[in-house]
């Protein structure tokens, strides 16, 4: 065991998988000599050479199209997009090709690639660097969307993503890249995709969250305890496909639920989760399921982003509305 933060865990997972499997290739802008703008790929070029750690021209579309072609031709590329604000160029290749190649060739051609994207607000970054548009991807059948929230999960989930036979969008909560350190196993391990993590069991209300919001919700839980509200926290880990069983079992137990996410409320993944609870566990509910999310506005720049990101206070207020219903 050794202590690592999330960004180091990304690096460890990449390194181990590159050692284990020659087909794993890392490519993107600044991933080589510079070790990535967040240093996720530091040391990889030196260890694996420039045929496996590739600095590319500055085009997200080209990076993902190239990685996709590599995946079709038997490699296991891991492409890095520097910020979620620049990810939209890749949508055509994801929607029209990566997500449907297996289907349109009836299983003959597949696209096992991983696209790593740092996402989310809270680091006082310039415009277009703070988006959280995961729901654009969770609406696409044929790909998986994964978001870790701890160093240990990061390594295990990224390892699984690289080994997964389908395209995985791996969203990294950059706000907490270096905020959390924990002991993680030195040896390789995987965490299955599609399975949520029970962060904390509780009896009064289920709070469903992911990524950087998990840590905020943990603080909320401590505050709520002072008022005798016992929260059950679910970290989804995989946003597509959703872990229905963990969500529904929990809601059936607590009878109340709150979804917390950074993305805008309208058509955010929270809406899907509320619909799922409605379809599967309506009669267990003692109160409406609410959402505390980013607003339906552009993510404000540095001076305003704290109004946008769900805060401990806003989440607490949401909780109380449900408890006091």
């Amino acid at each position, binding site marked *: 065991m050794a202590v690592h933060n999330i960004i180091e865990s990304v690096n460890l997972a990449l390194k181990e998988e590159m050692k284990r499997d020659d087909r794993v*290739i890392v490519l993107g802008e600044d991933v080589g000599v510079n070790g990535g703008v967040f240093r996720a790929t530091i040391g990889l070029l030196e260890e694996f050479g420039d*045929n*496996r750690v*590739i600095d*590319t*021209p500055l*085009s997200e*579309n*080209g990076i993902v*199209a*190239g*990685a*996709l*072609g*590599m995946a*079709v*031709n*038997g*490699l296991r590329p891991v492409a890095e997009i520097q910020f979620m604000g620049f990810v939209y*160029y890749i949508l*055509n*290749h994801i929607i*029209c*090709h990566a997500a449907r*190649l*297996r*289907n*349109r*060739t*009836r*299983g*003959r*051609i*597949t696209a096992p690639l991983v696209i790593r994207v740092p996402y989310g607000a809270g680091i006082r970054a310039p415009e277009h660097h703070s988006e959280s548009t995961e729901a654009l991807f969770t609406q696409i*059948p*044929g790909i*998986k969307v994964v978001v870790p929230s701890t160093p240990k999960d990061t390594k295990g989930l990224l390892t699984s993503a690289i080994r*997964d*036979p*389908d395209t995985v969008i791996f969203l990294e909560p950059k706000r907490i890249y270096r905020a959390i350190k924990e002991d993680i196993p030195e040896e390789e391990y995987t965490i299955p995709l*599609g399975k949520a993590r029970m962060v904390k069991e509780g009896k009064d209300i289920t709070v469903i969250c992911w990524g950087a919001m998990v840590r905020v919700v943990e603080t909320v839980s401590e505050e709520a305890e002072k008022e005798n509200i016992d929260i059950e926290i679910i970290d989804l880990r995989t946003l597509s*496909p*959703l872990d*229905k069983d963990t969500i529904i079992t929990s809601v059936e137990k607590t009878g109340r639920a709150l979804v917390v996410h950074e993305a805008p409320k309208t058509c955010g993944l929270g809406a899907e989760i509320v619909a799922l609870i409605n379809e599967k566990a309506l009669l267990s509910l003692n109160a409406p399921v609410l959402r505390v999310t980013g607003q339906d506005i552009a993510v404000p720049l540095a001076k305003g982003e704290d109004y946008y990101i769900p805060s401990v206070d806003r989440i607490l207020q949401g909780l109380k509305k449900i408890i006091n219903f």
Partner: protein
Amino acid sequence: MLIDEYDPLKNKRLQILDENGNVNSELEPKIEKKDLIEIYKYMVLSRIADEKAFALQREGRIGTYPPLKGHEAVQIGSAFAMNKNDWLFPVYRDMGAMLVMGVPLDLIFLYWMGNENGCRFPEGTNVFPIAIPVGSQISLGMGFSWASKLKKEKAVTLISFGDGATSAIDFHDGLNFAGVFKTPTVFLCINNQWAISVPRTKQSASKTLAQKAIGYGFNGIQVDGNDILAVYAVTKEAVDRANKGDGPTLIEAVTYRMGDHTTADDASRYRSEKEIDEWRGKDPIARFKSYLGSKQIWNKNFEKETRKEAEDLVDEAVKKAEAEPPPDIEDFFKYTYAEMPWHIKEELEELKESLKE
């Protein structure tokens, strides 16, 4: 080398066999007699299959279909120049090239009939399924060839696309990355003058499309796309270069789309009969036919036999495609992921249940 010599900036366009069947013997590629026959058979087969597809659409037996008439030389000539390990990333109008590369004709019909099974080519067929989003195959195919290079495999990827696709982001990304990483790629731009109703002159102010390669750091060459000898010779050279590690080439094959964009289009809305007539005189099959005549390969009997053989193949393929049972409902669901997730299973069960009522 043709590719070095025929500089598009010097207004050079490679032609070996002209409209009247005259051959430039200095440049004439050496093709064995049996291959010449094979090439002609594929040209005829493509045209007859194309006419059949058009007729089937009009009878409501297949869906929207993009006719290839006029493209026989560029499709057959380029595909014939490829080696066994090479891969084709075709444009949607590429039936002829796909046939040469081993895609069964019945599968092509099946696909246009609206059955995904038509896109599952037999193992060992080095053809990517056609890309409908225009130009997206260019960057994707580049990535595929990049992997061949990284894996140190001797395999070239030929990517075909139209003149309209040169305006797409993927043309830039595909060629730019290919230039930087020196990938073993042949970019075949089938310039047929029209992207639905938009003429070539409105796609780009560039005098030729071939010269765009220069900006990406490699060679481009313009070739008469209705001259199968020229298409074959230049593709072969580009494939050999790529195999030797000399990187990518852009070939601009100048041709004409004789038919509508698709069976849902009406080209008379935007182009004149006069223009089509001019191109009728440059027909790729007629030209190659007279070449074979001069080689004492073609005669009326040969023509009759070749056509009969092609018609039989087409009839058989149509029969086979139409006899294919409708796809199993599960097939629409089960290939979305390697393993079906719970929600898709649930949706499948719901659909099955709804059909029982």
